[in-house]
């Protein structure tokens, strides 16, 4: 599993600044957690304790909430977020075959992050672009009419770019 070092003091300071506009009312908690996830790409334990303390919500409730809603991730996510739509329209256009291909050919499993920290794959239910299904969203960019072959090309390209980046930095 991908490991990410978090510094509690740093997290506290960052969140103090980022969440200053909130009134610390219980009704805000889901949106607060969404903002935190937008920032870190996941919900680190440090952030959960911060919210629990400042919004006065028991930790059991916090975990109830973050495990109930699909938007939240308790594990660090990769550099590239792949979201494959498995809504009904994409399903009837054979999106599950693409899901299989990602795991079989590229070692990218649903709801997991690859060991190199490069990809996280998530499935979503309908993003509202059914005419172009199957849809794959790569870091927020929507790509339509996906096929196993096209997906292969995209993954290879991203891996190559990453390798080059690493080589350049070394």
């Amino acid at each position: 599993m991908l490991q990410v070092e978090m510094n509690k003091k740093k997290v506290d300071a960052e969140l103090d600044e980022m969440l200053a506009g909130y009134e610390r009312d219980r009704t805000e908690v889901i949106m607060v957690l969404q903002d935190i996830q937008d920032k870190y790409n996941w919900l680190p334990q440090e952030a959960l304790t911060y919210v629990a303390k400042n919004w006065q919500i028991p930790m059991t409730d916090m975990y109830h909430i973050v495990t109930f809603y699909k938007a939240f991730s308790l594990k660090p996510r990769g550099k590239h977020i792949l979201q494959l739509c498995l809504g009904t329209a994409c399903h009837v256009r054979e999106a599950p075959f693409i899901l299989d291909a990602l795991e079989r050919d590229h070692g990218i499993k649903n709801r997991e992050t690859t060991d190199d920290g490069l990809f996280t794959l998530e499935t979503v239910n309908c993003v509202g672009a059914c005419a172009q299904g199957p849809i794959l969203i790569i870091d927020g960019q929507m790509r339509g009419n996906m096929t196993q072959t096209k997906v292969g090309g995209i993954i290879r390209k991203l891996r190559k770019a990453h390798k080059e980046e690493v080589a350049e930095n070394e």
Partner: protein
Amino acid sequence: MNKFASAEELTRYQGELKRKTNGALKTISLCGGTGCKACGCNEIHTKLVEELNLREIRADIKVTGCQGFCEMAPLIVIRPDDTLYIQVKPRDIPEIVEKSIAGNEIVDRLVYHDSDGKPIPKESDVPFYKAQLRLVSKKTPYIDPMEIDDYIALGGYSALAKVLTSMSPEEVISEVKKSGLRGRGGGGFPTGRKWESCRKAEGERKFVICNADEGDPGAFMDCALLEGNPHQVLEGMLIGAYAIGSSEGFIYVRHEYPRAVQTFSNALFQAGEYGLLGKNILGTDFSFEVAINRGGGAFVCGESTALMASLEGRVGEPRAKYIHTVEHGLFNLPSNLNNVETWATVPAIIDMGVEEFTKIGNEKNKGTKMFSLVGKIKNTGLIEVPLGATLRQVVFDIGGGIAKEKAFKAIQTGGPSGGLLPEGMLDLPVDFDKLWEAGSMMGSGGMIVMDEDNCVVNISRYFLNFLKDESCGKCLPCREGIRYMMEILEKIEKGEGTMEDLETLEEIAHTVADTSICGLGKSAPNPVLSSLTYFKDEYIAHIKDKKCPGGICKALINYYILEDKCNGCGVCAKVCTMNAITGKKDQVHRIDLDLCEKCGACLESCPTEAIVRR
């Protein structure tokens, strides 16, 4: 901009805007809906601006919300000529600007062509649009959703002005009751009656809530309305709040729709600036504020009590409904929740009058309904039809029939908890009651068309899998029943099912439907029950003949190469990760069934369609 101090000021401003925009310039309406965004409409916009600047031509570019014809994305409409250009590429822009903006010609190769190859340049003549009746989505193609002036120029907020200055709250409720409007989120409950109960309920505060947690996979009507015409939704909420006697509103938007959140936030800001939201709206005693909440990604939060729990910052678990939310809803106070489309219909009713509105639809179902028509259909897109139109009209007149000349198998209405209807039911009128009687439901308006290559067992299993993940787990029948039904279907998919399984399946289905707390569980067995009614032979084919008629269930199919179609190009052998395909160049290839993983990569890449599965 000063706030409007009265309804007259709004009317005066409306007049000014109309004079200003009256046919002075050509308008290029570029669809910026999600579907067109996925097809690169941003690049087209850049190129358009560039080209107009280069030639020093003045024209009005409007990036609108979803115009509906997603299949032909990206779309451009030139007004006032009403010329529709489809599947436009950035390289087409210079020619469009030259001929249709600078001149008055039509670029023939970019207009829609019917099946006989005849060009149809006018948008309103294209069959996809011609067979529709657009009431709620009427203004979207003419509006930049980020500009309140565009909405006002088309008569926006007149309905609010009329209501605030000339009608009492009771009169508004009576109008809505007379209109026969029923909840567009799927329940079909009479909107006016709901409003009336909420108005009569006692409470120091009352809430108006807009449900935009559109979780049905394969449905994007609410998304399109919020992204395309947010002010119409807001105007509906304002009218509702006035009628109910509420000054606080919420909108709960699904987190998968970041653009809807953006357009609606902007709408709230602009309406506030104009004095159409906030204190003393249009100089009257009526005040109203709206807060946006982003959902956390849970299908069950589309259920009203679960949504309210989520608004309170708790997990979205529904509760039993014998306590009505109109009396004890959000924070245990009277709350009136309606779906996006319902709110957006209200201004249309006030504008056109009850008499005109009730001419549309049939006896118990008035007005229009938006649907997202998707799946294996020629013209995928967002449509609006009068209630009571038949499924056949939707699938064939608007949808253009099944894509790739395949045969129609089923249409699924009502989202994951709706039903599958066969060809024999195509003449069924689309309304709340008829769909319910047929074992399906209206739902929020997703319509998914399936062809001969889809498997009914697989689709039912897909819906159960979805609902199993989305069940909140509070009540046992839903939590355990759905899982158990799914296990049986998995067994059937593998060819290991028995006829006895079908009986068990039906029994569990009825139990789940009868004993679950909320709508999710109550309707979850619909796909199973409807497919058992209309497609039992497909189940039997899986069980007795060990065959999947749709060619989907992996355990029951194999891939083959048709000798007469294979040209020996070798593409299939190249994409096969199992090295199961062999053959010499330019000679017929073969699949080794022992090595084949049945992934379908070969079928997808074969240029001559020589590979089949059966």
